[in-house]
């Protein structure tokens, strides 16, 4: 086939190297060229990882016990609940959505788990009921958002109130205090010397990472978050995909509620006020964009560790919880502002 001087492909280096022919028309949007630019892009891409490394180094200096096994285990156990929700939240945010109802679902999970255990004596049945409640909440969110095209912010904020109300009605506004070792199995069992919540956290991150980055389903989540119409026109079941992400946050939030109820031996409706902010914070601090279409599960892992390290250091230095609130909020807004700033530079 004779054709003008357009070179056929060679195993191309990532993002148009110096030799890339007929480069982008608009240089402002052009791929970075040159080694310096590539190093900068790499530094930027992993910027939150560097922040974490710096933070851990600082933490070990400020608080010598920081990296001790017991402390690390403590950190992970305390954050297991929000961590697993954050994995699911990563899916929701990348798909272009948002879930503010996880706090209420967390409380519902805790209440149902404790309440059903108390009335039937069966922990397994109670766990099943709590998880089912999570599925129902997620499916409701998903249906309203994906099928009826209601703004996710409004939907989940409203649902949050509904779920919370249901939890209060079910529990009669009183905590279910459960005795008995079987209820605490979920939180206190250790497998191979490591507490079960940590295992659950690790499995959630691992499974989430594989699902998002290694499967067609994960690709499709990115696609609908980046350009929903393109996804639809490519034959994707957009409502189903969007809905599935909310089911994930619903189930993980309920599971997280169960884990904490199990740890405390109590299930009540008035917990979880900070869960939504905490999980969204984990996701955005890691560098996943609130605009959807970009991000990764490992980023949420980094976000989790950054926030957990900060909290741990604050506690060890006896800084009051009120200051922690201020710090956490500032960090979240700063992370989103940074994302916005970097984006503006790109275009």
């Amino acid at each position, binding site marked *: 086939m004779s054709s003008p001087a357009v070179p056929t492909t060679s195993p191309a280096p990532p993002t148009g190297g110096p030799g890339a022919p*007929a480069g982008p028309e608009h240089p402002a949007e052009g791929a970075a060229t040159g080694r310096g630019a590539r190093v900068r892009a790499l530094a930027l891409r992993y910027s939150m990882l560097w922040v974490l490394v710096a933070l851990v180094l600082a933490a070990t200096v400020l608080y010598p016990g920081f990296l001790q096994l017991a402390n690390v285990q403590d950190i992970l156990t305390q954050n297991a609940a929000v961590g697993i929700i954050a994995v699911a939240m990563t899916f929701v945010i990348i798909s272009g959505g948002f879930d503010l109802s996880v706090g209420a679902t967390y409380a519902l999970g805790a209440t149902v788990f404790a309440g059903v255990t108390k009335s039937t004596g069966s922990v397994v049945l109670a766990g099943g009921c709590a998880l089912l409640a999570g599925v129902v909440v997620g499916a409701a969110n998903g249906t309203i958002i994906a099928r009826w095209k209601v703004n996710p912010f409004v939907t989940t904020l409203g649902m949050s109130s509904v779920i919370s109300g249901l939890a209060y009605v079910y529990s009669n506004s009183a905590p279910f205090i459960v005795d008995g070792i079987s209820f605490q199995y979920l939180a206190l069992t250790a497998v191979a010397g490591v507490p079960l919540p940590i295992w659950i956290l690790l499995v959630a991150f691992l499974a989430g990472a594989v699902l998002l980055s290694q499967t067609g389903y994960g690709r499709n989540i990115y696609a609908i978050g980046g350009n929903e119409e393109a996804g639809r026109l*490519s034959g994707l079941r957009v409502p189903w995909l969007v809905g599935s992400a909310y089911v994930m946050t619903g189930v993980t939030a309920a599971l997280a509620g169960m884990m904490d109820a199990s740890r405390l031996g109590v299930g009540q409706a008035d917990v979880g006020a900070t869960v939504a902010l905490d999980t969204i914070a984990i996701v955005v601090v890691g560098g996943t964009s609130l605009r959807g279409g970009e991000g990764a599960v490992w980023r949420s892992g980094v976000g989790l560790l950054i926030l957990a390290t900060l909290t741990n250091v604050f506690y060890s230095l006896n800084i009051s919880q009120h200051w922690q609130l201020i710090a956490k909020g500032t960090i979240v807004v700063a992370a989103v502002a940074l994302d916005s700033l970097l984006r503006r530079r790109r275009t």
Partner: protein
Amino acid sequence: MTAQPSASDPTASGPTASGPTASGPTAPGRAASGPAASLPVAEPPPPAVVCRGVGKVFGKTYAVRDVDLEIPAGAVHALVGENGAGKSTLLGMVSGRLAADTGSVEVFDTVLGDGGPRKARGLGLVTVYQELTMVPALSAEANVFLGGQLTRRGLLSRREMRRRYEEMCADFEVSIPADALARTLSVSQQQILEIMRGVQADGRVLLLDEPSAALAEHERDILYRILGRLRSRGTTIVFVSHNLEEVLRLSDTISVLRNGRLVETAPRERWNRQALIRSMVGREIGVTARGATHEPGGPALEASGVSAGIVDDIGIRVHQGEIVGLWGLVGSGRTTFMRALAGLDRTSSGELRLGGESVPWPRSAREAIASGVVMVPEDRKNGLVPGMDAVGNVSVGVTRFTRLGRVDRGRERADAERFTRYFGFDADRLDAPVRHLSGGNQQKVLLAKWAARTPRVFLIDEPTRGIDVGAKSEVLASLVSLARDGAAVIVTSSELEEVLAIANRLLVFAKGRVVGEIPADSPRFRVRDIVRLGFHEKETER
């Protein structure tokens, strides 16, 4: 390789009973009388696509009305028509993107109903859309495999996808890095990926909406070759195009639409360029108005030492009443250069004089507009607010008809009417949301919007991309009027003939530099010499 269509397919929906003698409008043929009537012959294969009385209403008007059409399996079928004739709408209904309001679409004997794109795809129908449907944050490769990822045991088989992607790149004779994010790619590169996605999906029917509009000449040849190969494999191809040469070159059968109705369908042999145009518009049109032959006035814009991205130290001088064309291959920097002049590239630098007076280099569109330089962008979607009517679009950001901060609607409307009329826009459509307008009409609104800022210098990027013959000559003629009325116009188009038809002067770009400046009275002011100039520099650089 050009796939000169073999003899027409006699099994096809014998076109209109009266036979299209290309003499003008014929009654829309009832294709449904087809196969059942001719029983004795061997059973023909089922048609790929059948439309029965298909119609679509937008607002109060029919975009498509009562279309009966049968496309035999294995055929290459073209849909042509003027702006707003309903081609893209019809294609949209066949692809499942739009649900038909009346009638039904059948794909291989299965009714599409309102199953949407997913059902269409399940029936083996794959669509390449005109509006780019790239996911900006995904890589080139991921975009090509969107909705059709290759997997093994549930996991993505990255190596296999990379291999296929590179095969396809070799096939298309392009090298787009697999990991480059779609948002970093040029429009034509994205268009190629879009086509790759369609080809990769390996459907039985491939629909393409203006596949070549964003492509350069040599890229089109590659597209034609690939379509030819798909055809020989038995893929049914249905495409919409404004490029009549392309239609005549590729098709087995051609349908003409006018005002939402199917005017005629006939085999390729019965058509030629004139017949197509006559059928599309009902009247003959000269290709373009050979324009700017008047004397330019004083200098309007002088820029020197302009650098931005690949653009390296370019100078330009344009006079009042003059049209300067820019031409170059994709990636040669002509759009980048224009964006820099319009203040859209913050990294750019240079020196600028307007009307003979030195002004600071523009750092934002706001600054450029204030000094009388506007850019009419290539992408109509980014230039207009789709849900707003033409009046609103024209007056966005224009403050002269506000009184104490309140918009005087009457004056706003009169103003919008005046400016859109200048570009031949039908005043009846002023109140329709612009997303319902055809590409040509959107282009007119876009031009009116920028003209309403009464600039001294117009920078116009691809003003005729994807619009039909009639609207093209109107738009080109209106650029000539702008120049006659004293504006300086810098225009770029990948349709070189169009630039040559209206420009007083042409600058040829290659690799970010100007490699030639040719006045209209030079013997080198012709396609062959200019294209050679544009390519030459590229080859010697490698």
